[in-house]
């Protein structure tokens, strides 16, 4: 089977992409070679060609919370959002701390989406995510987990973090840490700052993230092992990461589009849609994050896709759970940053494909001969409005609901097969 995508726009230039089976054969300037005989042709004039995105941080809620999202709906949202692969966190019910849960997740993915997007479960770092005993990481790795994390339940015990990093390293698994000093942060509903002071709600100081990240980076340096800092929200954390990288520590980091586009003023009026963990920070944090993403201090973007049911977000700020749904919107939100010249198109490849693949040791598509034929085409000018008819996730908990966004996926191929 051979496929030819013609006249697609790639990094500003028109190209033809030739696909052979599940691999890229060539990418050439448009019109240079005629499409081979018998080849299926897709004329992509006006559309932008992107490598399949990898989202290294999503919550798919199955097993246990299928009313928020299940693996089928989550992967549908991923497919329509341009994601060829997603890493799903372990805070399901039961927690993904045994091989049977990992296998169950992979089976559900194979049933609903046999040709992708690919699901890569992340193993719980500790049994039940309770922060006390290490989970059976070798068994979890064998069952298909690609990384280790206690995401959502920050590990306070530095000794345990050390042992998880060490044990995971033997298995070739990287430790992803949700950095938050639970005591410094206790009982928070949003960022601690002028807005929380005005609204009269308990805030979380940015230093609670930076302090824990500093601990992890120092441990990683001491042990000579890698660590990945999840969803960085604070400018102070960037300083700590820069310090670690300058010392040669194997530290990588991620942030999400919402931290680049919003600050804590989005919670004015007790807007539960903007309640997220870690919380949206101040305007100077947001600006610092944009600069860090542009220059590569932040290695990758992730959605931290955290779907919730509408009734859960409909209430007071302290009743509502943390989280923003992300898979349906990430492409448009990132494209918005490109339109505003904060990022270049090439940065999108790096942030959503190349670097996540490198950090988590996954295949990726650099459009070189032999690369996996994971790619999508999107219309950069199509305007759409997130809402019940336009999203594939079960959940609509996003502060961007009802706003006009630019950029829509028009076709998505994974391993050379069209999935959208």
């Amino acid at each position, binding site marked *: 089977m051979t496929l030819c995508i013609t006249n697609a726009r790639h990094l500003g230039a028109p190209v033809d992409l030739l696909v052979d089976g599940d691999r890229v054969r060539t990418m050439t300037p448009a019109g240079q070679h005629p499409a081979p005989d018998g080849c299926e042709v897709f004329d992509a004039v006006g559309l932008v060609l992107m490598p399949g995105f990898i989202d290294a941080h999503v919550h798919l809620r199955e097993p246990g919370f299928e009313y928020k999202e299940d693996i089928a709906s989550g992967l549908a949202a991923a497919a329509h959002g341009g994601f060829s692969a997603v890493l799903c966190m372990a805070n399901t019910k039961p927690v993904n701390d045994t091989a049977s849960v990992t296998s169950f997740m992979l089976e559900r993915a194979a049933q609903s989406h046999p040709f992708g997007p690919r699901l890569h479960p992340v193993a719980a770092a500790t049994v039940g995510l309770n922060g006390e005993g290490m989970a059976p990481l070798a068994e979890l790795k064998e069952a298909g987990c690609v990384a280790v994390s206690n995401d959502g339940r920050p590990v306070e015990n530095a000794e345990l973090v050390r042992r998880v990093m060490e044990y995971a390293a033997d298995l070739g698994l990287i430790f992803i840490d949700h950095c938050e000093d639970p005591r410094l942060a206790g009982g928070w509903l949003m960022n601690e700052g002028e807005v*929380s002071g005005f609204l*009269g709600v308990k805030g979380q100081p940015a230093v609670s993230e930076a302090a824990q990240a500093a601990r992890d980076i120092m441990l990683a340096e001491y042990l000579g092992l890698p660590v990945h800092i999840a969803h960085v929200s604070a400018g102070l954390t960037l300083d700590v990461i820069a310090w670690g990288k300058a010392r040669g520590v194997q530290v990588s980091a991620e942030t999400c589009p919402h931290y680049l586009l919003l600050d804590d003023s989005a919670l004015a009026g007790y807007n539960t849609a903007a309640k997220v963990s870690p919380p949206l920070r101040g305007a100077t944090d947001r600006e610092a994050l944009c600069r860090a993403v542009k220059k590569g201090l932040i290695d990758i973007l992730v959605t931290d896709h955290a779907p919730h049911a509408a009734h859960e977000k*409909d209430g007071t700020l302290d009743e509502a759970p943390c989280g923003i749904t992300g898979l349906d919107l990430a492409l448009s939100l990132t494209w918005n940053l490109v339109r505003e010249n904060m990022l270049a198109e090439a940065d999108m490849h790096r942030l959503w494909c190349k670097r996540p693949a490198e950090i988590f040791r996954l295949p990726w598509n650099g459009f070189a001969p032999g690369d996996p034929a994971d790619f999508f085409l999107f219309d950069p000018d199509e305007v759409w409005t997130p809402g019940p008819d336009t999203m594939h996730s079960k959940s609509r908990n996003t502060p961007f609901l009802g706003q006009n966004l630019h950029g829509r996926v028009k076709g998505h191929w994974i391993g050379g097969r069209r999935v959208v």
Partner: protein
Amino acid sequence: MNADNRYYWPHKDLLDVTQLSGMDTLHLLDLAASFQEINRRPLKKVPTLKGKTVVLFFVENSTRTKTSFDVAAKRLSADTYSLTKSGSSLNKGESLKDTALTLQAMGPDVIVMRHASSGAAAYLAKGLSCAVVNGGDGWHAHPTQALLDCFSLREAWEGRFAGRTLLILGDIAHSRVARSNVHLFSMLGTRVRLCAPRTLLPAGVENWPVEIFSDLSRAARNVDAVMCLRLQLERQQVRLLPDLAEYSRRYCLGSAHLAMAGTDVKVLHPGPLNRGLEIADDIADAPASLVLNQVAAGVSTRMAVLYLLATRRDGKPT
């Protein structure tokens, strides 16, 4: 009542003093003054709100505020109904939304709500067509308390707020009374000072329109009024203070502080008082104390609020 008869009350709800203009505030205080006259009569009841229904929905306990609203409504001949947390389905896990819809179905004209969550009153008001009065939400706002404080000081200050200095003393961080008073008095031109240990100051307070002190002796100099806040004793558990004895040594308002203040300084307290902890026993009962005036002002001010909300017609003068 008000000389300017073109004025009309524009608000469906009273959620926070930040929604009020200077004009709204003065109109409301004028109206409260006229109700204060009624409250001094032997027969303290007028038929103004006969046939109107006021629901008192106090999810967080407060006998004083609830009684004040109840008395205010009854003096205007409104029917009042009380609903507490244990009487509602909230403690059976019902969401605030569903409780609100149940309340709405009872057809009240005004719901007064006290709730432990900041923003709860705004949430309720968004979903309901009847008027909502915020009777205190979390650490956020307590508009009728600020209005009654303002009413009490207006009498004492002969109507002049500009050029005066008000000191608010105590746990500012967790005080809806402080937040509402800072907004209201600064809007009226009063200089506001805050005095508290740093552990009891909110984030971002340096950007509020206030002067900040940690030393009470300095803070009290030349002020025209001191508002003591009630220290929430349960805050002890989160280690914001070493102990109560040390707190009272540094922050209990005593006669030495008042001696440094303005000659006709007034003392306010939202009650109930922790005597000897945040306010010296003799100060609470001294002539400078407006504590009992505040209680009377509370009824009059709340009568004005209930009247304005229960008789409002969209876009028409009240």
